[in-house]
């Protein structure tokens, strides 16, 4: 049955070459922890991807309850945390995932750095990677405000004050982020929400696609 469905689709859109392009690539011995235990350092990139998937899924469930306005944001998070079945766990996964993803990114970056894996011809992929790192920090900064509790509010206020001190464009930068040159309020929350769930994830997906295409093109770096 499944085979028939597959054949039917394959007949129409020739899916096999696409599928083989995605799935079929070599895993050399030196990166395979089944053969060399120390090769676990090569797992950090894949684990980062795994946490990103957790973040996306848990985030999608959070938005089923979360309300991005200053009257209800905190209440919706409180409700999710205390009343909704498994809400505590879903929020917990997103909260801890945000920290774990930074840790995994750091480990992955250090693996690539200390192995000198960013050297020719992989310079571009390193740059893509560092941009991903910046996007992740941006996601952390904007996500921190969303529960609209005291630590969220005051940390964001400090962050925006720092942005304001940037020479020449400081005030504009702050206004762009918070919707007002001095108030951290309703506009700030909706902007941070939009940045957190639409702008930065879109950039992240684009960069991750570039990252993976480059890895497939170039193959993993050889043994040291």
């Amino acid at each position, binding site marked *: 049955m499944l085979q028939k469905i597959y054949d039917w689709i394959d007949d129409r859109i020739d899916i096999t070459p696409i599928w083989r392009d995605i799935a079929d690539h070599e895993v*050399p*011995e030196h990166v395979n922890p089944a053969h060399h235990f120390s090769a*676990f350092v090569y797992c950090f990139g894949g684990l980062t991807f*795994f946490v990103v998937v957790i973040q996306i899924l848990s985030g999608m469930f959070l938005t089923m309850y979360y309300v991005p306005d200053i009257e209800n944001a905190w209440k919706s998070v409180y409700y999710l945390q205390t009343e909704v079945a498994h809400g505590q766990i879903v929020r*917990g996964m997103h*909260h801890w995932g945000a920290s*774990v993803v930074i840790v995994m990114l750091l480990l992955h970056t250090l693996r690539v750095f200390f192995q000198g894996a960013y*050297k020719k011809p992989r310079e571009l992929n390193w740059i893509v990677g560092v941009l991903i790192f910046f996007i992740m920090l941006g996601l952390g900064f904007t996500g921190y405000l969303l529960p609209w509790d005291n630590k969220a509010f005051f*940390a964001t206020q400090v962050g925006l004050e720092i942005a304001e001190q940037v020479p020449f464009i400081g005030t504009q930068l702050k206004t762009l982020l918070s919707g007002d040159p001095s108030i951290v309020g309703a506009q700030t929350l909706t902007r941070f929400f939009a940045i957190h769930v639409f702008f930065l994830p879109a950039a992240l997906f684009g960069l991750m696609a570039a990252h993976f295409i480059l890895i497939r093109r170039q193959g993993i770096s050889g043994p040291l």
Partner: protein
Amino acid sequence: MHKGKGMKFVGDSRISAERKPNVPKDYSEYPGRTEAFWPNFLLKEWLVGAVFLAGFLTLTLAHPSPLEGVADPTNAAYIPLPDWYFLFLYELLKYEFASGDWTILGILVLPGIAFGGLLLAPFLDNGPGRRPHQRPIAVGMMILGLASVMWLTYESAAHVDWESRAEANKPIPASDVEIDTEDPGYAIYENSCLQCHGDDLQGGGAAPALIGTEHSAEEIATIAVEGIGSMPPEQFQGSDEELQQLVDFIVSVNEQAE
């Protein structure tokens, strides 16, 4: 790919009518013990993912994610703190050479050099050797950078009393509780406690909320007279009867909040 004359297509599309079999490449001629990613490698690697997921779920179950009281922009006593991975930048701005007249150094120049160096690492460290000892400058800079970030993070985090922060900022759904200002206990509360614990018992910069307190009625009475932690003694000065009214009032607000 098949090209040129004699190609057959599906209908009027550009899909070739010739089917290719869906089989992995043969990796046996590759050096060492190379294997196919799908399915051979993945069939083992899911174990790593499973162990990781188990650890991750244990973490989320053991430590529920924190939520403080709803944002109160008028709370002037609140000491702001960013999430842990921004602490090093925050701490940097406390140094003399990175604040005041030198703020630009702290917010742009130093982080700019560090992150700019990271971004351009492949071009700064462009020799052919990949091993760490073949590129001592790059490796040295990275270790220096890592050590500074860790030191700054430690310096920042070590001076925070995390437990009392969490205690002082417990979440209370304010809307549910109505304070009965006619209650005889309220007048006593107003005189003795309101200044620090807030007009809705919601707490403030210097004192925790009294709603959701874990203390019993007797304990509350003792604390009002003898103080606790950073709360000085003799906040309440009055008769035993008034003390009883005060405690009854606080307990009744707590019962209502449940």
